[in-house]
């Protein structure tokens, strides 16, 4: 029962990392809104519930599908999302963005709700297509005077963290009650998607 010598080190490193990353920004001498640019990017994906639902659903679905989808989907999503953001920044128009975002929540929620298991390529393609809509909507919304690079990095990291939240919740899939819970979560995402689709049509 002896504890390995590096276990306490790893534990304390984890605690230290949490404390360090929990700190508030000093904003002492910010150059050209750089810290603000990063924080704006970090907050942006979290600020819209439609985005949050879809991104968490990607993590949930990945966790349901297991390896390798559990990491392929969250890797594919930010990369293709950034491609969509790049298109938006270049001025390439994409019609029906709001419908696409709402549809992503509906379909990804249904995939979780019914625990669909398509081939990996199809699952990745579905996630990638929707990621373009999310990226296009997000990428162009940099507040003036802030660093584009830091905004982009914050934006991508926040997206990845939302996937990680979904994956973490999805780990309950190993238990029977957890599988039911995930299906219920998928249903909630679907209902949210329907609401946002209704809003998109009403607008």
């Amino acid at each position, binding site marked *: 029962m002896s504890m390995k010598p590096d276990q306490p080190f790893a534990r304390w490193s984890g605690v230290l990392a949490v404390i360090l990353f929990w700190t508030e920004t000093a904003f002492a*001498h910010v*150059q050209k809104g*750089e810290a603000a640019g990063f924080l704006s990017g970090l907050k942006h994906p979290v600020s819209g519930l439609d985005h949050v639902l879809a991104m968490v659903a990607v993590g949930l679905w990945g966790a349901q599908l297991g390896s390798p989808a559990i*990491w392929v989907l*969250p*890797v594919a999503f*930010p*990369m293709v*999302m*950034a*491609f969509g*953001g*790049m*298109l*938006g*920044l*270049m*001025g390439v128009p994409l019609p029906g963005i709001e419908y696409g975002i709402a549809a992503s929540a509906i379909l990804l929620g249904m995939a979780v709700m019914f625990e669909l298991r398509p081939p990996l390529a199809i699952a990745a393609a579905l996630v990638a297509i929707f990621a373009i809509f999310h990226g296009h909507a997000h*990428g162009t919304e*940099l507040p003036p005077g802030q660093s*584009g*690079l*830091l905004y*982009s*990095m914050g*934006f*991508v*990291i926040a997206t*990845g963290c939302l996937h990680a939240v979904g994956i973490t919740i999805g780990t309950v899939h190993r238990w029977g009650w957890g599988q039911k819970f995930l299906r219920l979560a998928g249903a909630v995402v679907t209902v949210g998607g329907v609401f946002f689709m209704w809003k998109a049509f009403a607008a």
Partner: protein
Amino acid sequence: MEGVRSMKLTRQSRIPIYTAVVFVCVMCPLSAEAHLNSTGMGPIYDGLMHFLMSPEDLVPVLALALLSGLRGATYGRRTLFALPAAWLIGGLVGLAPLASNGNAIISALWFLLLGGLLAADAKLSLRVTTALAVLLGLYHGYLNGAGLGLSFSSAAVLLGLIFAVFVLIALAASFVVRLQASWARIAVRVAGSWIFASGLLLIGWAVRGAHGRAG
């Protein structure tokens, strides 16, 4: 008894002297220079901080360090020495008066290349990894040198910068080399995908900026 008393007296007699020394120290402080906008931190620290505060420099170095770490200790060691050395050479060349500024698209391409290789866990040969390290070092060193211009403190700034590059590679590569769990290695690859994604967006910003200037 006499000796103890004289020791106590000696200690007590020193109190005014200590008090005077403390008083002088308190009344004659050096300026704090907390706001370093005008003074800087000295050239070496300026170089060090410049690197740590410049994501366009830091992120590609981090990506290459993580990639080298994934490949093993030999790759990590090669990058550890090749990249700072190339950075120094590039920086010295960049100090020349005719040096030009960099291009945001090229910086973004470094994000794409290194982030993509890291995300794919590319099995590069040691020679290719070394070539990448040298090219990255030469390019970014050149840009840093061009930004500095030839002055008395430029060499010290470059040294600080290279020290920061060295330390970052040492920490990042050695951290990854010892990772055994597959999920931990996948987490490193996920970081690569984030760097790749940031590079895509950086291209978008560069194109948008160019259009804005043209307009």
